[in-house]
C-alpha cells in the first residue's frame, strides 16, 4: 500500500508499533500469502515455492524486470518481512477476538453431526409419536456428541432450516411476483428477530420460575430453530398443492413440534431438575406457584402473536393455526412438574410458527 513509507520507516530503523495498515496480497511477488492463509501453499510446489519465502529474494538473473529489481533491494526485503509480520499479527488479533465473541469450541459440539443423525432427526421432527427414549446420553457429565445420540441438540439443522426457509419464502413471494432481493434480507431479519424474542421470553420464564436446568442459551436456540423445518414443509406443500395442502401440513407440523418439544423438554428437565425433589413440601409449593406463573406467561405470549404478525410488511392474513390448542392442552396437564417448563416453550412456539409465514398465494395457484 505505501511501500515507500514502509521502506522509509524500515530504513529509519525505529521499531514502530504495528499500525492497522496491511500490505495487499494482490501485488504479485510482494507479500507472503503464507501469513494470511493457513499453510495452504505447500512447500513442495517447485517453481514458485522459493519465491514466496520472505527475505530471500535476490534474483540476479531476473534483474532486468523492475519487479525483480525491487525485490533484490534489501530495504524492500525488510519491508516485506515487516509487512508479512503485520499481516500475521492482524490475523492473530482477529482469531483472538473472534473467540471472545463467539465460543467456537462450544459451537463445534453442535455441528458434530453426520448424515444418519440428520436423517433420523428430521424423521423425528415430522413424526415424533413413536419415539420412546428421549433422554440425552451422557458420558462422564458431558453430553455425547450429536453424531452418537439422536436426542442431542445440534445447530446444523436449525441453521440450514433457517436459511432454507428464507430462500423458500423468497421463492413463494416470487411466484406471486412480489419478489425483490431486499425482501430476502427483510425476511431473514424479521425471522431472526422473532427467534431472538422467543429465546428471550423463554429465558425470562426460566428465570422467573427458577427451575434449575442445565439448558444453555445455545440449546434453546437449537430447539427453537427446529420449527423452521416444519415451516419449510408447510410453504413447499402450499406451493405444490394449494391452500388445503398448506393448512394441512402446517397443522400436522404444529402438532408434531408440540409433541417433540414436550417430550424432549420433559426428558431434559427430568434429568436435570433434581433439586426440588429433595424438599418435597417446599417442592410442591414451588410447583404450585410455578403453574400459575406459567399460565399467566402463556396468555400474553399467545396474545402477542397477532400483534406481531400485523407488523410485518405486505402480509394481510397471517395464519395462527396453533393458537387455541397448545395453551389448553398445557393447562390441562397440571402438576407433573417437568411438563410445566416444557409446556411453556411450545405454547410460544406453535403460535410464533404462524407469525411470519408469508401470505398464502392461493389466488394464483387455485
Amino acid at each position, binding site marked *: 500500500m505505501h511501500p515507500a513509507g514502509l521502506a522509509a520507516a524500515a530504513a529509519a530503523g525505529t521499531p514502530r508499533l504495528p499500525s492497522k495498515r496491511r500490505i495487499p496480497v494482490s501485488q504479485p511477488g510482494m507479500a507472503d500469502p503464507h501469513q494470511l492463509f493457513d499453510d495452504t*501453499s505447500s512447500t513442495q510446489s517447485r517453481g*514458485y515455492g522459493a519465491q514466496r519465502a520472505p527475505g530471500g529474494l535476490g534474483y540476479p538473473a531476473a534483474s532486468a524486470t523492475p519487479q525483480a529489481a525491487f525485490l533484490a533491494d534489501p530495504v524492500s526485503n525488510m519491508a516485506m518481512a515487516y509487512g508479512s509480520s503485520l499481516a500475521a499479527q492482524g490475523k492473530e488479533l482477529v482469531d483472538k477476538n473472534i473467540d471472545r465473541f463467539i465460543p467456537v469450541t462450544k459451537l463445534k459440539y453442535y455441528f458434530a453431526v453426520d448424515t444418519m443423525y440428520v436423517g433420523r432427526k428430521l424423521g423425528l421432527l415430522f413424526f415424533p409419536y413413536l419415539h420412546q427414549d428421549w433422554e440425552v446420553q451422557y458420558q462422564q457429565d458431558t453430553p455425547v456428541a450429536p453424531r452418537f445420540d439422536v436426542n442431542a441438540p445440534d445447530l446444523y439443522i436449525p441453521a440450514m432450516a433457517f436459511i432454507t426457509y428464507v430462500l423458500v419464502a423468497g421463492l413463494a413471494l416470487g411466484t406471486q411476483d412480489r419478489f425483490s432481493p431486499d425482501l430476502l434480507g427483510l425476511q431473514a431479519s424479521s425471522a431472526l428477530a422473532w427467534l431472538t424474542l422467543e429465546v428471550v421470553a423463554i429465558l425470562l420464564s426460566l428465570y422467573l420460575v427458577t427451575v434449575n436446568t442445565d439448558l444453555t442459551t445455545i440449546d434453546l436456540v437449537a430447539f427453537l430453530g427446529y420449527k423452521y423445518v416444519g415451516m419449510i414443509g408447510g410453504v413447499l406443500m402450499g406451493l405444490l398443492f394449494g391452500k388445503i395442502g398448506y393448512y394441512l401440513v402446517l397443522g400436522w407440523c404444529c402438532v408434531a413440534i408440540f409433541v417433540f418439544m414436550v417430550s424432549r423438554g420433559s426428558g431434559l428437565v427430568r434429568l436435570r431438575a433434581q433439586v426440588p425433589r429433595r424438599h418435597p413440601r417446599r417442592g410442591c409449593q414451588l410447583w404450585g406457584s410455578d403453574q400459575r406463573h406459567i399460565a399467566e406467561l402463556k396468555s400474553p405470549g399467545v396474545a402477542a402473536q397477532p400483534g406481531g404478525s400485523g407488523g410485518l410488511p405486505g402480509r394481510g392474513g397471517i395464519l395462527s393455526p396453533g393458537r387455541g390448542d397448545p395453551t389448553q392442552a398445557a393447562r390441562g396437564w397440571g402438576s407433573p412438574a417437568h411438563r410445566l417448563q416444557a409446556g411453556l416453550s411450545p405454547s410460544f412456539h406453535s403460535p410464533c410458527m404462524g407469525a411470519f409465514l408469508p401470505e398464502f398465494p392461493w389466488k394464483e395457484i387455485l
Partner: protein
Amino acid sequence: MLAAMKNRKSILELGIHFDHIRQKTWTVLNPMKPADGSIINETDLTGPILFCIALEATLLLAGKVQFGYVYGMSAIGCLVIHALLNLMSSSGVSYGCVASVLGYCLLPMVILSGCAMFFSLQGTFGTVSSLVIIGWCSLSASKIFIAALHMEGQQLLVAYPCALLYGLFALLTIF
C-alpha cells in the same frame, strides 16, 4: 521465443500453474472421479476468477448485467460455507481454500448460463437441467471438501449448503 519463455516464467512467478488448473478442472467436470486431497490445498484463485468472469460474460451475452450480484453472492456464500466448514470439520480450513474450491465448482454453472444464451430456461426443461447442474456443482464441491478435510459421513451435509449457494446462481441465470 525468448519473449514467450520470459512470459511463461513471469506467469509461473505469479503462481499460476496451468497444469494444476487443468487437473482441478477435470476433477470438477468428472463427478465420479475421486478427488485428490493434496491439490486442493493450494490456494489458487486464478481459475475461480476466470470462471466468475466467464459466468458474467455469458450472463451479459444473455442480456443480464449482473456483475455485482455474482460477486456479492460468491463473497457471502464463501463466508458462510467457510464458517460452516470450520465448525464441522476437526481441522480448520482457510478462506482462500474455500473460495478456490467453490470457484472451481462454478464451472458447470457457466455451461448452464451458456445454454441460457440460446434458449430460455423458464420451462420444464430449464428447471430440470438447472437442478441437474446444481446437483453436479454441489456434489463436486462436497467431494473435494470431504477429501481435503477428511470428514466422514458428511458429504450430503456439506453438499446441501453448496447446493443452496449454487441454487442462487441458477436463479440469477434463469430469471
